[in-house]
């Protein structure tokens, strides 16, 4: 029976743990290493070190910051702001996106407003937020949350609206009530879009917090970078940026792992959100 042959393309073999396999994984690091080497070489030769610092100086500064504990309070403040801003933004985005996606009536009323606010450059709101929420963490959380919100909202809204009408009808005929329809159809169908929004929102939450801290703050990584740049401390600026970079990469890695786990059916069958 010809139709009993499972499609082999979907069952790609697991990456082999061979030396060649590891080598292939290291290849993407090469351009980064080359850039760092060039930076090290060019600093003091092509460009004055006071403008661009150099990798060894940045590494030394990083070590010093952690060894003396100077960076810890900044790190702690920024981390709190990031986590809260991100969590509030994601929660709001998922809830609003889901509600508007499910209810065409709500969407008709609110979609134009959301779209209008979507176009507002959120960074321009930073000074206002400082006035409204103070120079403490509140204003940074708000800025980060609003940037995350729109991204997540838009993805979830699109995802819920893209749910196959025929699958919804089928599930109703099979006997589903509204609650079961949400659990078995809408949530799993929207999950890839929720995950995509959450992953895309990570760097935006960082931008929100750092811009907020740049504008006005008493503590935080953004303030630290700001102070370093205004006191001719390029090594300090790059050290701060390196920490942010590490954070974004780490969070992105965790999000990708979570996504692979939750959306196992997609990795196995090779179906992207666009094909749902």
């Amino acid at each position, binding site marked *: 029976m010809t139709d009993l042959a499972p499609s082999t393309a979907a069952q790609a073999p697991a990456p082999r743990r061979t030396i060649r396999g590891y080598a292939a994984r290291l290849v993407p690091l090469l351009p980064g290493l080359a850039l760092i080497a060039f930076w090290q070489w060019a600093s003091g030769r092509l460009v004055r070190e006071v403008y661009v610092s150099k990798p060894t100086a940045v590494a030394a500064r990083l070590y010093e910051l952690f060894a003396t504990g100077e960076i810890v309070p900044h790190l702690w403040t920024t981390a709190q702001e990031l986590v809260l801003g991100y969590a509030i933004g994601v929660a709001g985005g998922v809830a609003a996106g889901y509600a508007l996606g499910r209810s065409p009536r709500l969407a008709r009323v609110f979609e134009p407003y959301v779209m209008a606010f979507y176009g507002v450059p959120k960074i321009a709101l930073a000074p206002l937020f400082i006035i409204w929420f103070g120079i403490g963490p509140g204003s940074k959380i708000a800025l980060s949350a609003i940037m995350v919100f729109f991204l997540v909202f838009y993805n979830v809204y699109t995802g819920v609206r893209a749910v196959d009408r025929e*699958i919804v009808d089928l599930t109703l005929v*099979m*006997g589903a009530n509204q609650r079961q329809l949400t659990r078995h159809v809408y949530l799993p169908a929207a999950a890839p879009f929720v995950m995509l929004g959450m992953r895309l929102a990570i760097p935006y939450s960082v931008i929100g917090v750092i811009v907020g801290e740049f504008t006005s703050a008493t503590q935080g990584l953004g303030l630290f970078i700001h102070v370093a740049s205004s006191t001719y401390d390029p090594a300090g600026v790059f050290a701060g940026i390196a920490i942010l970079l590490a954070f974004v990469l780490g969070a992105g890695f965790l999000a990708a792992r979570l996504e692979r786990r939750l959306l196992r059916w997609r990795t*196995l069958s*090779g179906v992207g959100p666009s094909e749902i």
Partner: protein
Amino acid sequence: MTDAVLTFADIRQTFPAPGDGAPTRVLDGIDFAVGRGEFVAVIGPSGCGKSTLLQMAAGLLAPTGGEVRHRGRRIAGVNRAVGFVPQQAKLFPWKTLAENVELPLLLRGIGPAERRDRVGAALRAVGLDGFEGHYPGQLSGGMQKRGSIARTLIYEPDVILMDEPFGALDAQTRMVMQDDLQALSRAAGATIVFITHDITEAVVLADRVVVLSQRPSRVLADVAIDLPRPRDVFEPFRNPGFDAAYDAVWSRFRTQIGLPSRGPRVREPAP
């Protein structure tokens, strides 16, 4: 017919046209009934509203005029006593095959032990045992279709509505599926309404073929197919009496697909 399970009574359907254009009349007084255990094929030119009739039987669409009755009761709202097999398999991509087939039982509040037994039996019936843990994306088109049929058969719906279920399959898979459907439906004594645009498929599978006209469509003919069962779907022309049955359907259908008429017969004027 007194023991009709499903009755279409003077069904009319008009769809609003985009903009200010005249609304499209799709169905113009469709009347036919489906008896218990009967396999009725509905055939008609494309765009004649065949699928619309199934949506009405499932309670997903209310007709503009007339009514669909299921066991004498007018259908208003989703009809959970029927099963629907769509054109595409439409398995849930986020559920494994076994979870897909299990879903109707889960939704109907059937306990886990019984669910497990019935899922096993349903998958065996369509020849998919051993693929329980596969996701739909890992299955071939034919296997997905089998899964879709198993998902419908498992809750033993009163009527099974099939909307060109084999239209998207390759020719060989299609014949195998037709053969399997014939066996499964006979074993289950199922009542089936089967939409198709393939006359051979209609004649070889059905007890009756309802021929619809072009839009706005009416029932052009209701042809009983009295071929003995089981029928050979692989070589349909070898079934005794197949030619005559095919001709009875085709002679009515050919007037609807814009072929120049042969001999003195004049094309029927549009109503």
